[in-house]
């Protein structure tokens, strides 16, 4: 059974937290990420979801000290994430953080994401690269994405903002933290396995979860070979419209 978190529980017992890192052919970057998280967050378990990589992602991640789960073949970005959600459900974790294996997401921002979930202020936090830092002393540089993606983000961000009546600046962000009730739901058959995006945010809102965007720092994808590189703008736009429509039609 998922536990319900109250503020007064925080001090007494630390929550079991896991960070999942979906990676597809990220042998060049994965070790550095795993190492950084291992050093900065020693109390958090770390699982790399190797999504059918053909390179040495699995070996590199394992040697760097992560537990590795290997999908037998590539299931896509969402499919890899869901393997992580199922792992977290199976092993009774309370909080899950996800960040991409290509080094795009700055691991230093992880605490900012986890904190609202730990305190029970939000059920899921989404790291936004566009919010800009409200923290003093840290300057998050402006983020530039390819034009087609930028337009997609703006359109679906606007649709999500309208539908959930709450500002959504970065619907494509895969840098998130969530409690067990959220990842239990996402490990079910409602979760899209290709591009989880604004449709998931809308679905979670309709399921009654509290969503909060948190400013994070993202780096441009190092060699433009991230898990989103199967990104086909036309299919993406079609899929997202359809997905949002059917999400609204479902009860």
């Amino acid at each position: 059974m998922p536990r319900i978190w109250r503020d007064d529980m925080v001090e007494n017992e630390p929550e079991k937290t896991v960070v999942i890192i979906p990676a597809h052919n990220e042998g060049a970057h994965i070790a550095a990420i795993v190492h950084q998280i291992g050093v900065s967050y020693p109390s958090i378990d770390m699982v790399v979801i190797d999504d059918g990589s053909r390179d040495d992602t699995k070996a590199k991640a394992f040697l760097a000290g992560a537990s590795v789960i290997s999908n037998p073949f590539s299931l896509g970005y969402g499919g890899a994430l869901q393997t992580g959600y199922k792992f977290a459900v199976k092993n009774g974790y309370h909080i899950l953080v996800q960040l991409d294996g290509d080094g795009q997401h700055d691991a230093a921002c992880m605490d900012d994401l986890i904190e609202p979930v730990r305190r029970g202020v939000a059920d899921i936090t989404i790291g936004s690269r566009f919010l800009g830092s409200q923290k003093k002393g840290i300057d998050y540089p402006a983020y530039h994405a390819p034009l087609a993606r930028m337009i997609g983000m703006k359109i679906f961000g606007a649709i999500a903002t309208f539908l959930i009546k709450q500002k959504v600046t970065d619907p494509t962000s895969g840098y998130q933290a969530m409690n067990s009730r959220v990842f239990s739901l996402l490990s079910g058959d409602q979760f899209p396995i290709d591009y989880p995006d604004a449709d998931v945010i809308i679905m979670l809102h309709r399921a009654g979860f509290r969503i909060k965007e948190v400013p994070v720092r993202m780096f441009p994808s190092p060699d433009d070979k991230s898990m989103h590189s199967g990104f086909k703008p036309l299919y993406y736009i079609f899929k997202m419209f359809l997905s949002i429509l059917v999400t609204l039609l479902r009860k």
Partner: protein
Amino acid sequence: MFFEEVIMSIRIKIVTFIICIAMLLLIVDLVRRRKLREEYSQLWFATWLGILILMVWFDLLKWVSHLIGAVSNVSTLFLFAFMFLILISLHFSVVISKLTDRIKDLSQQHALLQNELESVKRAQSNN
């Protein structure tokens, strides 16, 4: 009236009849040899039985042709055959989607079990 009779000649009737019977026999045989599952054979049966009935019961075909405004009875037959084929492809897409979901679930389960097995083995060899 004469026009319709000419188009629906006895020859095309015989050809269609033979094709229908052959296809029905083929489907039964495939099910018998377990090459085709019963659940996927139903739409195929419906297609060929439908054409056969329209073929044999000529008044029904004429009535349907009149109803949908088809010029010739043969095009009515084609229309129905075509419609059923589209239904069958749609049915396949549904089945493929279901299979894709199942394969996804299975491979995720497989990945989780393998991870568990590896950690159990590691724990054992450390002892």
